[in-house]
C-alpha cells in the first residue's frame, strides 16, 4: 500500500452560467483590475492509501462521480501524486 493525494478539480461545464464568478469578476473590475473572463472551480485534496496509483485514481474518480461533482452541470479531473 502507498500513500497518495488525489486532487479533484470540479468545474462548471462550458455553457453553464456561473453567477458567483460573474459577481467576483465585477468586483475585481471595480477594484481596477483588467481581465477578460474569470471562471471558478472547486478543488478537493484527498489523502488515501491505495495499492497503486491506478487504484487511487479510480477511487477518487468514483468519489467525484458519486458526490463531489454533479454530472449535469460539472466536469471534473483527477490528479494523483504519491
Amino acid at each position: 500500500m502507498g500513500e497518495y493525494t488525489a486532487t479533484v478539480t470540479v468545474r462548471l461545464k462550458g455553457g453553464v452560467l456561473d453567477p458567483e464568478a460573474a459577481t467576483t469578476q465585477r468586483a475585481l473590475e471595480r477594484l481596477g483590475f483588467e481581465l477578460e473572463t474569470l471562471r471558478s472551480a472547486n478543488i478537493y485534496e484527498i489523502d488515501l492509501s491505495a495499492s497503486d496509483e491506478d487504484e487511487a485514481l479510480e477511487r477518487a474518480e468514483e468519489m467525484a462521480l458519486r458526490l463531489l461533482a454533479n454530472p449535469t452541470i460539472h466536469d471534473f479531473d483527477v490528479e494523483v501524486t504519491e
Partner: protein
Amino acid sequence: MTVTVLQFGGSNCDRDTVAALEHLGANAELIWYKDDIPAETSGIIVPGGFSYGDYLRAGSMAAQEPIMEQVREFAEAGEPVLGICNGAQILAEAGLVPGAFTVNESARFQCERIYVRVETTDSPFTAGFERGDVLELPIAHGEGRYEAEASLLERLDDEDRVLFRYCTAAGDVTDDANPNGSRLNIAGVLGPDRNVGVLMPHPERATLPDLGLTDGEGVLEDAFVTG
C-alpha cells in the same frame, strides 16, 4: 394513510408542510431522517430548508442519506413523492428527477412572490388543474436555477414532464418573469414515471388562508389528500 414529511437536520419548512396538509384534511407525520418511513405512508414530501447547510451543493448531502433508498423504493412502487425547494434539490441530487438546481442567476438568495403556469395535468400534483392555470406562489431560494442539457430539455418537453414554468400574472412565459435564470423558465419537473415531482416554489406557504395566498393548495390536495 399518512403523508410522511421528511425531516433532515436543517429542514425548516417541515412543520409548515404538516400544517398545510392538516389544514387540507390529511394526516401528516414528521419523520426524522434516521428513522424509517412508516408502512402506512401514502405519500412522501421532502420539504424545504437548508439540509446540511447547503454544503457542497444544496441537497447533495441529504441525497446520500440511507433513508433516500426507502424514498426511492417508495417512488418505484408508483406512490407520490414531492420535493419542495430544498426537497427539489435533494430529489434532483438523488437522481429521482433529472437536471440540477443551482445558483440563481442573480447570485443572491431571493424571497418573493412569483407566478407559475401549470404545464401538464398528467401528474398527481396537477391533476386538479387545467393546463395553463396560473398560480401565485412564494419562492425563497439561492439555488433554484434549473439546469439541464439541451437534449434533456427537449426530452422533458416531448414527454410532457415539465410541471410548472415561471410566467407573468397573465400566464406568459417570458424572460422577465423568470426569477432565477432557469432554463426555459422551468420551475418544476416530473421523474420518468410521473409520480415523483419537484418544484422550487412553496405550495405549502400558499395553503393556509392566514398567509394570504392559497394557490398552492391544489398542488398538495390532489396527490396527498383526495388522491
